[in-house]
Every structure is written in C-alpha cells, then in structure tokens.
C-alpha cells in the first residue's frame, strides 16, 4: 500500500537535470522539435547506409534481398518506436494499441500532437522486457490477421516511416494493400492469400517476382528516405556537409548506386570504365583467399568439437585467481515467483508473541524490527494470513518490493480474497511495472469487496496466476477496469470510499494519467488526512508528473505522520535529486539507511537506496566516497555528512 511510483532520477535527469532540455518546452518550440526529429533521422543515417549498401551490393550474405530490404525498414520502424516514440508516449498499453489498431496516419498525427516527453513514464514502469513483449504483440498481430500477405505490412511500415518525417503523399494502408493484392493475384492466380503466404518463400517464381516488385519499390523508398533526410538537414551545422549533398544527389537521382558503385545518373560509359579499372585493381578477392586457406580451414573444421574443447581448456588454464568471477550474476533470476526468502539467524525465533510485538514495533515506526518479528511469526505459524499481510506491507514500506511481493502472494494463496493484501499487491506490481498483474489484482480487489462485487461482470482472469507471458495492459483492459472503478466511486458520491479512490489513483498511475491519479489521491487525503501512505502516494504521483516541489510537501506530511516511513524518505530524497539538492538528498538516504539498520545486523537495508545514494554522491562531486558505499560503510558516510544515528 505504499506506492513508490517513483521517479528514479536517472530518467528525470536526462531531461530535467542539467537544464539543456526542458521537456515541457519541447512542444512549443518548433526548432527543438525539429531537432529532435532530425536526431532520430540521424540515427537512421545508420539505417540509410544499411539500406543503400544493400541496394549496392545485392547479396552480401545470401539472405533474400526482399527480406533484407524489408527487415531494414522494419528495423527502421521499430527503431522509431523505440528511439523516438518510446521514450515519450511509450506507455505499454499505448504501444500495444498502436500496434493493433492504429493506422499509420493516426500514428503520425498522434506523434505530432503529443509531446513525447510530456507524459514521460516513471522509472517504475521499467522498459525491461518490453521489447520482447513488443515482439510477441507483433507476432500475435500476425496471427490475428493472416490475410495480410507478408511484405505488405513491411511496405506499409516503410511508407509510414517516410511519411513520418517527409510528409510525402501518403498512401493509405488499404489502398496499398489492395494494390499489392491486385498484383499478387495476377502473379499467383487464384490462391487465397494465406496460401500465397506459405508459398511465398518456397516458390522461386513468386519469390523472384516479389523480390523484383519490392526492389523496384524500395529503390523509390530509398530515394524517399534520402529525400527525407536531406530535407531536414537544414541545421546550419550541416550547411556544407558533403554527406548531405551526397544524399541529396541520391534523392534526386543525380547519383545512383549500381553494382556497388555510385554512378552518375548519365554516365553509363564511365561506369563501365570504372568497373574495368576495378577488376584490374590490386584488390585480392575473396575466392583467392578461400583457396589459399582452404586446407587449414578444412582441417580445422573437421575438428570443430576438438577445437571447442581446446578452447574451453585454453581459457580454463588461465589463472583464475587473477580474474574475478562475475559477482552480479546472482542477480539474474526470477525475482517474482520465488518463495519468500527468510533472513537467517532471526533473533526473535523464540519470541513468545512475535506478531503483536511486531505490530507494536510497526506502530513505533521501527520497520526493521517489525520485519524480523513478523518473519519469526510466520515461520512458526505458516498459515497466519494476517502476519503474512503485515510482513508484505512492511517490506513495501521499507522499500523492498520483491520481498513484499513474495509475502503478499503467500498471504493471498492462503486467503485469495483478502482486501488489504490485494490492494498492497497491486501497488507493488505497479512499482515493478507489472501492469497486467496490477490491473488484475485491482479487479480482484473489487470483486472480493462485498460492496462492489456486483459491479464486476466478467470475473474471469481474476486470479493472480503469477507471471503471465506479458505484463502489458491493453487499452481495453484498462478501459474496462477504469469504468468499473468509476462506477464503484459513483455508488456513494457523498461518502467517499478512500480505498476506491486510492485504487483508482493506482490505476491512473498505471495508465500514465498522473493528473487524474493526483486528483484521486487528493480526494483520498481530504477524507483521511492522517494516513501517511496516502500522502506518500500523492507525493509519488506528483513527482511522476514532474511536480517535485509539490511532491516534497506531500512527502513531508507523510513523514510527519510516520517518521519511520522509509519509502517516503527515499522518495523525498529522489525528489531532492531532481531539484538538484544533492546534499539534502544524500542526508535523506542516509537517514533511511540508518533506519533500516537494526541492532541485529544490516540485512534489511535496501540496495535501491544504496545505489541511488551512490548516484547522488556522484552528482555532488563526492565520488571519493564510492568505496564507502560499495562496502556499505554507513559509519563513514554518517560522519562525512553529520548524520546522527
């Protein structure tokens, strides 16, 4: 229940920290906007080179030129989505919607309408795995639309890519598809499209035809891409650029690429001469090489396995002691599905009543002691639902999300309808950017709440079945659950249900609607002003919408209500970083770490805080203290910053 929803400075600082880049100005400043497009285009010089090289060389490595060409442009498309749209609009649900439903035109408009950085997602919506998911979506898209012949979407994508920047006359997907199909029919007779798709790569005749078709097409695409690039090369920086000049000539057809040579549009003769000259040149060609090295290569290849074994041995033989192993590899594991990880040597193992003692500690704000006591309790009574719940919520409060998830999941296994646990878990999932899981948990909360049970019409997919293949929440899923929660909120307009408001706030954080989310939490704190968790959530939401000053006020309120609230303290520190108050940030992190330390070892300190502290130190020019951070040497740091324990 302790929404972190935070604003790791890493993301904020790329725009907000150094003042070069003010996210909100972008949409109003056409120049900056143009530059941002140009920079995307510039990274596509890389792609342009690829595409052009491809045309120039034909076969570099045996891949079907059609496939190569389209794959380049596919990359071009996905790159834009990753490189340009993603950092901004990037909301995963949004992405999926784009993939599934948007016409290319819509995409372009959408992009132009929206300032990519305005709705910058918080770090909590980590993009890890998104790429993979995008692949899956693309895949499922193909599955759902078998009628589209391969290549069509690719060409559309190219079309879109060009259109995107150049505003060349736009061809609608449909038109294009029709056009394509017409040709396709003439080439394949009466085969239904799906069949054609299957045959597409096998049937040589078709493949040749397809290759020709696309090649003809792609030469134009190349021209278009080049045109787009040269058109936007108006940055005075590039006024004298020979490269842009070259690209311009390619786009006008003044130069073309033929047989790996750039040729003057009209100079056929010259081309021939050049080719002859090339043949005479002292360039050793590959075939000679292959011959020369054949013998040895063959010999080696026949011993491939042996070579590999030797390789292993060869590496093994080097002195291990001088080469450290990779200590960070242990991080590489499934963090969400694992069983709760108990701390060793719990001093309270024999405590007569650890649960009530834990509640007492919690009340006093001593989270780390409370954690040990709750752990001792569930170890003794593994079926103690309430203790699991408190264990989970306390971990979240202590900025230890993975442990929180494990404990809460255990709690819900014992009692699937436990409302506080469901609410807390939805927040933890949100913080870990497991959108779909968060969304389902919220729905389950509503379903299990007797007041709102009747509102949930579709009760499938309520169970938290762990890691489903995707963590993306679709627009539909979001809309559905949003409408149910709004309905729930309308049931008692006079009597605000704080929990519903809070859930709705979490939901809008999931969808990136921070303004709405902040409104929900404001309503909630109005009704329940003494709840530190709600204040922290409000703060985190404000911070997510770049209102760090307001966020700080909310965090302070949370901390005045609950001084031991580590997560709020940590969030406060992050907002300080975003406001460049590094010294204050460092102090807050140190206070948080000191709180996490208990008399029984420092095992409840969270790595998150340490690594953010390290970053704050580097901003503050105190990299000499990195070692203390790496060694978790709190005493030295306390002394350096006059933090009293």
């Amino acid at each position, binding site marked *: 229940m302790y929404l972190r929803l935070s604003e*790791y400075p890493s993301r904020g600082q*790329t725009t907000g*920290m*150094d003042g*070069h880049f003010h996210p909100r100005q972008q949409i109003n400043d056409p120049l900056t906007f143009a530059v941002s497009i140009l*920079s995307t285009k*510039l*990274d596509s*010089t*890389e792609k342009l*080179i*690829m595409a052009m090289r491809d045309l120039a*060389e034909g076969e570099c490595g045996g*891949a079907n030129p059609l496939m*190569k060409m389209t794959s380049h442009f596919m*990359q071009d498309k*996905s*790159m834009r989505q*990753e*490189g340009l749209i*993603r*950092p901004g609009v990037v909301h995963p649900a949004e992405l999926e919607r784009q993939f599934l439903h948007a016409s290319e035109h819509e995409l372009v408009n959408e992009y132009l309408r929206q300032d990519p950085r305005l709705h910058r997602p918080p770090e909590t919506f980590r*993009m*890890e795995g*998104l*790429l993979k998911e995008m*692949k899956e979506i693309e895949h499922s898209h193909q599955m759902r639309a078998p009628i589209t012949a391969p290549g069509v979407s690719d060409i559309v994508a190219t079309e879109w890519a060009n259109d995107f920047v150049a505003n060349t006359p736009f061809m609608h997907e449909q038109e294009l598809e029709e056009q394509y199909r017409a040709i396709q029919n003439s080439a394949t007779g009466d085969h239904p499209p799906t069949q054609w798709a299957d045959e597409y790569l096998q049937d040589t005749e078709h493949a040749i035809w397809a290759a020709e078709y696309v090649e003809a097409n792609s030469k134009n695409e190349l021209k278009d891409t080049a045109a787009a690039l040269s058109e936007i090369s108006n940055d005075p*920086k590039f006024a*004298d*650029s020979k*490269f842009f000049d070259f690209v311009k000539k390619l786009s006008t057809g003044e130069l073309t*690429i033929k047989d*790996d*040579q*750039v040729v003057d549009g009209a100079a056929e003769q010259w081309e021939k001469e050049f080719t002859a000259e090339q043949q005479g*040149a*002292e*360039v*050793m*060609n590959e075939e000679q090489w*292959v011959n020369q*090295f054949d013998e*040895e*290569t063959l010999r*080696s290849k026949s011993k491939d396995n042996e*070579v*590999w074994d030797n*390789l292993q041995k060869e*590496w093994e033989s*080097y002195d291990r002691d001088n*080469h*450290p*192993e*990779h*200590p*960070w590899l242990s*991080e590489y594991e499934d963090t969400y599905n694992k069983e709760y990880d108990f701390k060793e040597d719990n001093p309270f193992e024999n405590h007569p009543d650890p649960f009530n003692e834990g509640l007492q500690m919690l009340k006093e704000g001593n989270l780390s002691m409370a954690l040990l006591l709750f752990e001792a309790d569930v170890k003794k009574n593994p079926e103690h639902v309430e203790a699991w719940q408190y264990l989970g919520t306390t971990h979240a409060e202590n900025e230890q999300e993975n442990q929180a998830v494990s404990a809460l999941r255990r709690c819900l296994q014992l009692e699937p309808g436990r409302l506080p646990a469901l609410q807390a878990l939805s927040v933890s999932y949100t913080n870990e950017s497991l959108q779909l899981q968060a969304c389902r948990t919220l729905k389950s909360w509503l379903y299990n709440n007797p007041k709102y049970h009747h509102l949930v019409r579709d009760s499938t997919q309520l169970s938290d079945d762990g890691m489903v293949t995707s963590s993306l929440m679709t627009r539909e899923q979001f809309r559905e659950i949003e409408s149910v929660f709004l309905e729930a909120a309308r049931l008692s307009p006079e009597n605000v249900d704080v929990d519903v408001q809070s859930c709705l706030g979490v939901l809008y954080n999931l969808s990136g609607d921070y303004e709405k989310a902040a409104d929900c939490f404001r309503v909630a704190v109005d009704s329940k002003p003494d709840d530190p968790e709600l204040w922290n959530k409000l703060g985190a939401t404000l911070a997510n919408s770049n209102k760090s000053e307001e966020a700080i006020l909310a965090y302070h309120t949370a901390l005045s209500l609950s001084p031991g609230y580590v997560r709020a303290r940590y969030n406060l520190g992050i907002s300080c970083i975003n406001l460049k108050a*590094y010294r204050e940030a460092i102090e807050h992190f140190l206070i948080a770490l000191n709180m996490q330390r208990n008399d029984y070892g420092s095992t409840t300190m969270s790595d998150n805080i340490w690594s953010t502290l390290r970053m704050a130190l*580097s901003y503050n*020019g105190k990299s000499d203290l990195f070692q203390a951070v790496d060694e978790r040497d709190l005493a030295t740091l306390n002394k350096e910053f006059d933090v009293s324990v």
Partner: protein
Amino acid sequence: MQYITQNRHGYSVDFSPYFADRIACVTGENFGIAGPGTLYIIDAQPQGLLLNKRLEWKSSLFDCCWSEINDNIIVTCSGDGSIQIWNISADNAPVAVMKDHLQEVYCVDWTKRRNAPQHVISASWDKDIKLWDPQKGICLATYSGHENVAYCATWSPHYLAMFASAAGDGTIRFWDCRTPSRCLKIINDGRGEILHCDWNKYNKDVIISCSTDNILRCWDLRNAKIPTITLPGHQYAVKKVKFSPHKENIVASCSYDLTVRLWNIALPNPMLEVIEHHSEFVTGLNFNLHRPGQIVDCAWDEHVKVYSPMSLQM
C-alpha cells in the same frame, strides 16, 4: 596534426599498443555506402602525420583493432561480411580472411590481454556476435540474442573470457565466450539504439554506452537497472565512446553533431570540453596508450586528427 584520407571517409581509428606514434584508420568510399575500403597506417612524425602504408580491400572497412601480441598485426572488418587479418610488414593483401557473418560487420575487437587466448570478437548487422581464432582463421562460436543489428562488441579488460555487446535493440549484453548459448546479463536501456560501449579500465564493473538518443550512460553491472550516471550534451546520436586508459573518470565521445566531447564523470558538471574541428560526422575516436592526454579521431570529412585537448593536460 592531421592527415587527409583522400576520397575515403573514415570509420574508425586505433593507436598501436606498441608504437606511441602509430595509428591505423579504416575508411570507405562514398561514406561507406558503396565501393572499396582502405586501411591507412599513419605515423606521427615531427613534421606531421605521414602515411606509412595503404592497404586496399574491395569493400568498405568499418572497424580496426591492433593485435596485442604482434606489433604488425591488425584486424579489420568490412561491408562484405568478412574479417581481415593484415600483416603490415608483409604483403598488400591480408594474411587471412574470415567469413561467416551474413551481413556487414561493424565492429571487431582483439582480446585486451596478452596472457589470454588471442581471440577476436565481431559484431554484425546480422545481429550476431562471433568469436574467431585469427591464427587458424576460423569462427569458433556465435552469440545470438540481439533483436536488432549489433553495433559493438568489446572484451572486458578485467573479467576472464567476458565481453559486452551493444545493439540497435537498445540493450547491452554480457557474454562469457565459453558459453555461447547463454547471455550472462542484459542491460536494457531501451531509449534508442546503442551504437557503442566501452569498459572502464579501472573499475571492472563499470561500462559506458552511447546511444541514438544523444546521451551517454554509465552503468554499474552490480546494479544495472538504472544508469549510475547520464551525460547529456551531444546534439545528435553519439557514435563512439571511450574511457581513458590513464584516468578512471575521463571519457571521450564523438557524435553526429560534428563534435568530440570530453567528460569527467566524477564531476557535478561532467562536460569538460567540446571540440568541433570536423565538418562531417565524427565516426572514430581513440586514446593514445603511450601519451596520456593525446587523442586521435576521424570523420567523414576525410580528416584524421591527432591532438591533445586542453582539458586533459593536467
């Protein structure tokens, strides 16, 4: 000091680990889009940069790296998907050509240790990284996983048998060359294509990457979910980034914005200097291992420049 690679557009430069004044520069005609490539061996003399040797290949050369064990051996990679081993004291043709990649090879790296198997890794637009035995002229292993073209592969100077690769899919991947089937770790930046990355020479767990979103990011492998440091400032995509071999916190980067920038990542205002002396994209950059503070760069304006930036003279 400068050298002009007439009609050839630079892609990469490397200082010899043996001779303080020897540079290799690889280039391509027509900005590497079509036509042949040339490897220049250039020596810095009191009177300027002088050509020592010029070696031709039929396809554009994209990257080069000197051997650690033989002062005359250098490896290059090219647009035709092959990797060439050259002996600059011998013929005008490469002593070995290795081909296994299906598309353009964009990066090669010779192992940075003398006390380790002398292997080469390469990154290609076919999305794969490959391990090569340059003596036998064979490919030993392939590392697949990147979901978009691979731009960079670089050996760890510290961890045995480990290397990092960076790609258009916005990830940096870490591999143990002995286990091609499994990537050790993935850093998912996702904010653009990562065009290059380089290991810190003093801190074994620190790596820096540069991306098409114009920003350099420093990562600590022990906690790589978020970058430890981000360095904004370049106005366009950043092509190469290098850690200094002499000072832990010094970084140099070159970009499509025509500049080379120097950074001290430990400072609150990390950007030390902006060097704008090229008129086209700056594509290659390296530190001199023997002369602290000296840098070489190359660009598509056909100029190779060797200089000692003010900010590195301390």
